[in-house]
């Protein structure tokens, strides 16, 4: 198991932000998603988030919904997600699972933590539980030495940001626009101040999810954040090539390369 902090330490040593890439497990297939994530690692992602497809993803926009629904329709299971974690974590890059809460509660919180650690996973990102309602997960994560990545938003109060920063391990995920996931123009006057508010609570890295889809946007976010999270744009690469795996992987590789260059040329 590699904690996500390793990725941030490496990036800090190179005076740059980390690039964190997301894909849901099971799209286009379980094996296909593992292969795609390995390409992203190979082309420069510093950490990986693997989405656990869920029937009621209230924080996701149409792009991620489409891929996750496809995976569910094809019968992807929680155990498949753990298999993808194992395959990606074997590259040595920190590998987290991003999941809505009910599948974890259903699997068994303690059992999931144990199996995730066994698979080499670094921890969980939990978009629909906050630390004040996540005591069971916090206990299981601590018992298995896993990262607990909670989210903050522009609407978060200072008190809640302090609470979230103190309960998180690995990094704090700043969802820096008020809205669901999806590629957008990625310029927001809310993101910088949000990162600053998290930083005033200590040293934990802050990664920003804001709909980045190219290297210039990544460079912009990397100028003020410790990590740049990219999801929908990666998913789009695969959705755009439904019947041509090689073309989809090539698009992923090109995008990752562009983004990895972006986080390296940021003015910091």
């Amino acid at each position, binding site marked *: 198991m590699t904690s996500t902090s390793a990725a941030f330490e490496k990036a800090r040593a190179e005076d740059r932000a980390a690039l964190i890439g997301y894909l849901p497990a099971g799209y286009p297939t379980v094996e296909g998603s593992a292969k795609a994530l390995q390409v992203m690692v190979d082309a420069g992602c510093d950490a990986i988030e693997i989405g656990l497809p869920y029937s009621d993803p209230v924080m996701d926009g149409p792009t991620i919904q489409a891929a996750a629904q496809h995976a569910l329709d094809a019968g992807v299971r929680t155990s498949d997600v753990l298999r993808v974690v194992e395959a990606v974590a074997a590259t040595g890059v920190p590998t987290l699972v991003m999941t809505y809460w009910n599948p974890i509660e259903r*699997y068994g919180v303690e059992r999931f933590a144990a199996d995730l650690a066994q698979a080499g996973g670094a921890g969980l990102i939990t978009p629909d539980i*906050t630390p004040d*309602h996540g005591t069971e997960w916090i206990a299981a994560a601590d018992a298995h030495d896993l990262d607990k990545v909670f989210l903050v*938003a522009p*609407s*978060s*109060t200072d008190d809640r940001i302090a609470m979230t920063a103190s309960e998180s391990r690995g990094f704090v995920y700043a969802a820096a626009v008020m809205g669901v996931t999806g590629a957008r123009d990625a310029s927001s006057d809310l993101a910088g101040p949000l990162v600053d508010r998290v930083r005033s609570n200590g040293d934990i890295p802050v990664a920003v999810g804001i709909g980045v889809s190219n290297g210039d946007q990544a460079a912009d976010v990397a100028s003020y954040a410790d990590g740049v999270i990219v999801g929908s744009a990666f998913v789009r690469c695969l959705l755009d090539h439904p019947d041509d795996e090689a073309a989809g992987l090539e698009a992923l590789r090109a995008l990752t390369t562009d983004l990895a260059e972006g986080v390296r040329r940021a003015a910091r």
Partner: protein
Amino acid sequence: MSQTVPSGPMRYEADERGYFGETWGGRFMPEALVAALDELTVAWQDAMADADFVAQFERVLREYAGTPSRLYHAERLSETVGARVLLKREDLNHTGAHKIRNVLGQALLTKRMGKTRVIAETGAGQHGVASATAAAWFDLDCTVYMGSVDTRRQALNVARMQLLGAKVVPVESGSATLKDAINEALRDWVASVDHTAYLFGTAAGPHPFPSMVRDFCRGIGDEARAQCLDQYGVLPDAVAACVGGGSNAIGLFTAFLEDKSVEIHGFEPGGDGVETGRHAATIHAGEAGVLHGARTYVLQDEDGQTIESHSISAGLDYPGVGPQHSWLSAAGRATYTPVTDAQAMEAMALLSRTEGIIPAIESAHAVAGALDLAKRLGAEKGPDATIIVNLSGRGDKDMGTAIEWFGLGDAEEGPEADLDQTETVSQQ
């Protein structure tokens, strides 16, 4: 004998974090919405403690919605079952259901909070119509999310909402029904929360919605309890309501929770029969999980993916249930029993023909369940045994379903043929 269940005035209430019985409910929500939910919690609690707000709410209910609704003794029905059956006539409220109580309360709160836009989800369209009505009356912008499967099934309600000035957005994602409409409304709310209130349609979802919606609907039971004492000098032996999300049921039950002599019965949509897997009997056949922000009983598969529910009644067709109902069931204070589509449709015909009241198919589930209950209570306690049934809505909206089910609409057919068919279906 010792009392194993603790008692006290607060034991059925949620704690300050929204948990009923320490387990059910809560707030499993994105951080982006927490500030808005906190703001709503404070505004609701302040409002309920403000005599002016409470008086304004009561005035709007009385003058605009037509409450208190009557408590009506269904004499012919009572004779057939051997007990006194009292119908709480929420079907006579403006817009034809109890739901107007909830939306007027939430819309009044929206105005008080200074927000200018409301959003709502709807399944059959009743909550959407009620929301559009309240938005028109309070001069608020209104957007209603409705599964595209439902917009096609309920075109008349779509037109009603549009006539009232609301924007209706068909939802294509997931199963394109009520749960997906809730998902889409939540997605809207995450992006619009600074000026938009989410008028949640039932006593489910994240804290404070289960408690707040209950408070706005509890007039049903408060009125019924006072009416029963006033008209008959006794408390009822039992109260009964249908349970989808459970707003009409919790609205009735709340007044009776501390009356230990009163049995509390919820009737869940049993669809084709629980054994077929095609049903929405969430408490009876679901398992504890988290859906739409609350821990409650959920119809879900082994991996925690929500299973699509089935009911002939679109208003009950939801794979979750309000968390307070889960708690009342777990605590043994209320009993939840499934009623099949066929039993509900039989009760719809029976009430139409014995009392001249066409109930919503939702409410027909309560009537069907109450018939067996009344027979038992009548046998135990005699003809003065009293049961209050919440007639939560009227059946006009369900005529399309009734036409199909009973084979109505052909003027050549006599009424006997239709009833025969009901009996045939119910015996299958």
